[in-house]
């Protein structure tokens, strides 16, 4: 059991029409670009569908699909292949853009959709916890960011103040 199986199940969910598009973010997403970052859960961003006859979007079909395949709920997580997975709605313009711009990566023959490094960094700047700022620094130090693209995302989503504060704290 492992993250690769989580990815295979996400792909199956997509093929079965339970989710339209997904993208992995958080520490697992960052690990696609950086050294492995220890984490206890997997963050998966999706667009939730409205239930038939309702305008309200709901994660219920996701939970029902996975429950029928033996997965269990643990609080806000659903345990897939031994990993607690959190399905998060792409509920802000930044997250919607990140989901739309996500890229496909090959994991030993299995396709995985992941946020771009620039979007992971922008989301971390927006979230703004100490560990998020540390992640932005890791991206910068590793030299994996297209800084021009990051600046465009920052400007587009009103994060210039967050970036300036981050620069003052860590880069100057």
């Amino acid at each position, binding site marked *: 059991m*492992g993250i*690769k199986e989580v990815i295979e199940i996400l792909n199956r969910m997509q093929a079965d029409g339970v989710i339209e598009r997904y993208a992995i973010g958080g520490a697992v997403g960052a*690990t696609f670009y*950086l050294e*492995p*970052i220890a984490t206890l859960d997997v963050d998966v961003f999706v667009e939730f569908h409205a239930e038939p006859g309702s305008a309200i979007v709901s994660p219920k079909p996701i939970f029902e699909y996975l429950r029928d395949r033996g997965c269990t709920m643990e609080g806000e997580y659903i345990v897939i292949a031994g990993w607690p997975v959190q399905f998060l709605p792409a509920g802000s313009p930044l997250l919607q853009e990140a989901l739309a711009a996500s890229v496909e990566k090959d*994991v030993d023959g299995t396709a995985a959709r992941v946020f771009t490094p620039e979007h992971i960094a922008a989301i971390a700047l927006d979230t703004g916890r100490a560990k998020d700022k540390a992640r932005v620094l890791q991206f910068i130090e*590793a030299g994996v960011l297209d800084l021009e693209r990051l600046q465009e995302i920052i400007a587009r989503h009103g994060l210039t103040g967050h970036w300036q504060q981050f620069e003052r704290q860590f880069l100057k």
Partner: protein
Amino acid sequence: MKPDLARIRESKRVFRKELAERPIAEKLRMLDALRQRTLAIRRASNSDATKKAIVQETPQLPDNK
């Protein structure tokens, strides 16, 4: 003996870069192992202080390096 901090920092930087450049599947397997290790440490301790201290670990290189 005075530690050569510049050399240590450079060594860490090279180590992290080498880890980052490993195949994605291998890095994801490292995450699986790191999670198991973190959970084992947590199970072995009921101390809140220990739980709070586990934020991030540096993975070990596999033996076949």
